[in-house]
């Protein structure tokens, strides 16, 4: 294999260093990725390709590099989750209801990445409206995980909702990708695909121009091939935005400069409530390994309690659908997207009802209706207000742990390795929801959480560990994550079958 044709295998930091030395061009990197994308149609990760935009931006990046005024991500080709509005490029949240929608504007996060010099290769598949944990609810069809079990060819899920992003990064179709995370949608697919993913503190990244699912929980973040890459890309994505009233007006530090490799004297909490009944031994063993790695690096390990953990998923499945039912009310067939064909005599109510019945998939309908129910007169207090009170308690669990001196919390990222596509089809929806059991608490508490690949199970599938940090301390958290990454020494890649 020539070097040019394997440039897509680089991560952000490796490619950046070569670009700065003038050893490769952004056009070469971009062409290598475009070629890899063309050869990976079966994975169904990229659903709207933008090669013209990519090459135009790559050429501009090469000029800036030559002139010596290159911003931090100059010339680095990345994929963008379909949830981000990108000007003039289809942005439909993997839903039929947004078919044909081409935004007249660019989301703040994708604009920031563009301003940092990154090159957009196209839009990535995902669960419809980011609702799902297996990327099986997309209007574009399922995404395949490039990883397969050692002993069979069964098609596996890359996780969800950022499944296209996870698959594309793991299969080297791009150097990195954006994801979004409402209950685990960056961290669970990152774990299933053997890559790194961080959900920053709520308010770090502007939500403007990202199709809303549950506004009090949604956050964008990077999905990358290393912790260093995550630091580089997160910095480019973060920052205050007057167009998002919940975006934090805080200075964004140089996250990469904070990767010192030193966590001596830090305290790491191990929450006893994350030891679940029926958890596979391999996950338990991986968690114990992670604990040992951090201890060897000079951290102090303490057992902690987060007593309301058990109630996080039920609270999430009130709050997220409630917010979704409100956010998704805008899809009415009037201003954008799909409008149903009407029968003689149909009025505006029929137009709404038919449009939404045709445009939304089953999981989205289910969640919108559950949200409608928990917000309806007579149930608002019993469900919605109670869930918000429980959310207060879940956040307090974390605050108490941090107040007692804990710097980071170490947990498994997921309760299992990637499962087979279709395996959950006949299961009740709640079983699918359990995928997010270790990640959803972090969204409810608004904290930063990072998933790092830390080992393979006995079938050869990647497993991830999660580190949870204090609010706004992503830099410190990424430093700890890199210590874990180095100690785990995870270098495995899926063998190419596609």
């Amino acid at each position, binding site marked *: 294999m020539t070097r040019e044709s394997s440039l897509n295998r680089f991560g952000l930091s490796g490619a950046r260093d070569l670009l700065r030395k003038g050893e490769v061009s952004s056009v070469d990197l971009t062409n290598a990725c475009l070629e890899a994308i063309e050869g990976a149609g079966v994975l169904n990760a990229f659903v709207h390709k933008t090669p013209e935009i990519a090459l135009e931006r790559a050429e501009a990046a090469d000029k800036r590099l030559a002139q010596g005024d290159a911003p931090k991500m100059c010339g680095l080709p990345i994929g963008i989750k379909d949830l981000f509005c990108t000007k003039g490029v289809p942005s439909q949240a993997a839903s039929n209801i947004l078919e*044909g*929608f*081409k*935004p*007249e504007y660019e989301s703040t996060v994708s604009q920031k990445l563009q301003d940092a010099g990154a090159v957009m290769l196209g839009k990535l598949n995902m669960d419809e409206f980011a609702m799902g944990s297996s990327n099986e609810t997309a209007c574009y069809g399922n995404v395949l995980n490039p990883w397969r079990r050692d002993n069979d060819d069964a098609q596996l899920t890359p996780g969800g909702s950022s499944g296209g992003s996870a698959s594309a990064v793991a299969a080297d179709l791009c150097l990195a990708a954006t994801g979004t995370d409402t209950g685990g949608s960056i961290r669970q697919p990152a774990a299933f695909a053997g890559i790194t993913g961080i959900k920053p*503190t709520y*308010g770090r990244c502007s939500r403007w121009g990202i199709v809303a699912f549950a506004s*009090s929980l949604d956050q964008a973040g990077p999905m990358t091939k290393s912790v260093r890459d995550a630091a580089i890309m997160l910095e480019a994505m973060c920052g205050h935005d*007057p167009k998002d009233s*919940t975006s*934090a007006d805080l200075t964004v530090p140089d996250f990469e400069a904070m990767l010192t490799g030193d966590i001596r004297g830090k305290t790491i909490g191990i929450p006893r409530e994350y030891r679940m009944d029926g958890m596979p031994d391999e996950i338990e063993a991986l968690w114990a390994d992670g604990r040992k790695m951090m201890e060897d690096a000079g951290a102090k390990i303490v057992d902690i309690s987060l007593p309301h953990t058990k*109630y996080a*998923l*039920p609270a999430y*499945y*009130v709050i997220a659908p409630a917010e979704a039912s409100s956010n998704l*009310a805008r899809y*009415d*067939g*009037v*201003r*954008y*997207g799909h*409008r149903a064909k*009407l029968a003689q005599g*149909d*009025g*505006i109510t*029929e137009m*709404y*009802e*038919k449009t*939404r*019945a045709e445009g939304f998939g089953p999981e989205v*309908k*289910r969640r*919108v*209706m*559950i*949200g*409608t*129910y*928990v917000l*309806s007169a007579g149930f608002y207090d019993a*469900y919605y207000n*109670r*869930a*918000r*009170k*429980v*959310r*207060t*308690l879940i*956040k307090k669990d974390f605050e108490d742990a941090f107040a007692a001196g804990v710097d980071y919390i170490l947990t498994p990222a997921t309760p299992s390795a990637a499962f087979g596509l279709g395996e959950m089809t006949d299961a*009740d*929806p*709640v079983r699918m*929801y359990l995928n997010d059991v270790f990640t959803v608490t972090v969204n409810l508490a*608004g904290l930063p959480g990072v998933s790092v690949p830390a080992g393979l199970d006995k079938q050869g599938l990647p497993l991830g560990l999660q580190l949870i940090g204090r*609010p706004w301390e992503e830099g410190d958290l990424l430093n700890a994550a890199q210590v874990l990454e180095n100690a785990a020494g995870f270098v495995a890649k899926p063998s190419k079958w596609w």
Partner: protein
Amino acid sequence: MSIDESTAAKVAKLARIKVEDDDLPALAAEFNTILGFIEQLGEVDVDGVEPMVSVTPMRLKRRVDEVTDGKMPDKVMSNAPDAREGFFAVPKVVE
């Protein structure tokens, strides 16, 4: 709290999603599974606990009350399924 078919139909109506009568029993069953899961919240002692409004304690920023954007009707309408003469067109609303 168990949801019957008529409640499921009412919820679908409130959500403005057309559900065929034949699909109501399955929908009601799914609602019951999910609500059964949510019922666990009843075990938590929430006396005196404030419902969360904002996960990060921050005061919303104020800005000057002035027009910052506009004068782009073509862009606003460009994705509409049916736009005519600068308006979004919909079926008859008032009889």
